[in-house]
């Protein structure tokens, strides 16, 4: 049964890009036409900023996941659209275990998700090592959420510090169904995609149809490596996923992912980190492929960066490289570093590992570099801030 599409009105205001980098946070603010951009001074210079998110429910509350090379992880929060910041009183932390047992410690907070419109002040956070946390006071205090952090089966699927990405496995892509706050998804690299329909009391893996690295069993969640999962705001029954092993689409209530990346050009392949979906049309989505051959260089294929768009839910993909360097551009776009706004003609934003921000005001048809010489970019979120 297909759910009715949700009508979201396009927006038309100035855009603020919230940029997390390896050495601090920045904002880039546009005019209404998104033609001119102004870069802020660095915020929390020297901190490793994995994610900054503005709460769309009030457009004033912002949370920033921060750590440094030596200090422990924390979350900074602003309630005045980024003018002032305060630290969370109790950042996400695993429970202390009894003497003699080996407990886990949060290395960094990786992902932040504001919850449902009917649950103001509720946020979710995903961490490395992999854990799921919830705040009910706008990010001021955090508690472990659900049973998964301590469940033996989930802990086995989560693996150890050696089983995920180089700086630790990450729980990410925490998605809340805009129709029902009890309907949740999250993803783990590694550990697969998981769904709850009862507000986190139980979760079940959603792995059917997903490939894993050759030689491993696709029925075991441990071997699944989702890179980025997105839920379509205009049709919450449709999810897209950029995975370590391809690009996928899932149309609920089916629980079988379809590998739509097989329709990508063979010489490009369907490997990458980020994926974004059109806010008003669930048939449109973008990826930013990278080289996943041999030893995984994780750079733009052949040094020629390009986004690829599908306008028919993955049946066909079109290259979008106008404005990008034509050669010798050996950068990567990380999973949180591609974002979109909600204008009628959607704006797309890409942050590179080389510290550049590229923008498109026309859904990827042309691209312009709007900032350079930033530190390595980890995340970009496009927001419209309140006054």
């Amino acid at each position, binding site marked *: 049964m297909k759910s009715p599409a949700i009508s979201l009105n396009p927006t038309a205001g100035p855009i603020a890009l919230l940029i997390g980098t390896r050495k601090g946070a920045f904002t880039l603010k546009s005019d209404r036409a998104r033609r001119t951009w102004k870069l802020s001074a660095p915020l929390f210079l020297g901190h490793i900023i994995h994610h900054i998110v503005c709460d769309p429910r009030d457009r004033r509350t912002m949370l920033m996941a921060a750590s440094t090379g*030596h*200090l*422990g992880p924390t979350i900074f929060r602003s309630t005045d659209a980024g003018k002032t910041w305060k630290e969370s009183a109790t950042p996400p932390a695993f429970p202390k275990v009894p003497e003699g047992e080996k407990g886990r410690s949060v290395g960094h907070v990786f992902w932040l998700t504001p919850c449902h419109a009917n649950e103001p002040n509720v946020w979710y956070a995903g961490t490395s090592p992999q854990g799921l946390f919830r705040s009910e006071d706008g990010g001021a205090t955090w508690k472990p959420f659900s049973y998964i952090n301590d469940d033996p089966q989930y802990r086995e699927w989560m693996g150890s510090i050696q089983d995920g990405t180089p700086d630790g496995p990450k729980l990410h892509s925490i998605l809340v169904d805009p129709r029902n706050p009890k309907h949740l998804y999250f993803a783990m690299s590694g550990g697969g995609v998981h769904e709850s329909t009862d507000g986190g009391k139980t979760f079940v893996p959603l792995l059917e149809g997903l490939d894993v690295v050759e030689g491993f069993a696709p029925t075991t969640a441990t071997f699944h490596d989702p890179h980025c999962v997105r839920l379509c705001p205009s049709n919450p029954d449709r999810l897209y996923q950029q995975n370590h092993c391809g690009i996928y689409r899932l149309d609920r209530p089916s629980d079988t992912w379809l590998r739509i990346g097989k329709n990508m050009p063979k010489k490009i392949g369907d490997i990458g980190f980020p994926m974004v979906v059109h806010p008003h049309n669930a048939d449109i989505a973008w990826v930013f492929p990278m080289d996943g051959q041999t030893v995984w260089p994780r750079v733009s294929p052949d040094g020629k960066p390009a986004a690829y768009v599908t306008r028919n839910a993955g049946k066909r993909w079109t290259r979008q490289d106008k404005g990008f360097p034509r050669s010798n551009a050996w950068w990567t776009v990380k999973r949180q570093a591609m974002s979109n706004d909600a204008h009628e003609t959607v704006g797309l934003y890409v942050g590179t590992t080389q510290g550049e921000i590229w923008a498109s005001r026309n859904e990827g048809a042309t691209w312009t570099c709007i900032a350079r010489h930033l530190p390595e970019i980890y995340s970009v979120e496009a927001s419209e801030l309140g006054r």
Partner: protein
Amino acid sequence: MTVHIPGALRSYTAHKGEVQIDGATLAEVLTALDRRFPGIRFRIITEQDTIRPHIRIFVNEEQRHDVAAPLQDTDRVYIVCALSGG
């Protein structure tokens, strides 16, 4: 006793590089430090009460790995950020 605060943590101590804190053990000193400067302890010590990987704590000139270590009133505690990388 005197606790030396590294530059990376002075945003918590109103930019003071030295603070006077009482405690019979390192753990008590860190708890008292956090009471006075909320949030500072978690940046130094994990939720499992271990010293974070790139933090070192010296008492006088001797490195301590265990926060249960007893202290004297005359001891000087140095919290050090072990910097690495570019």
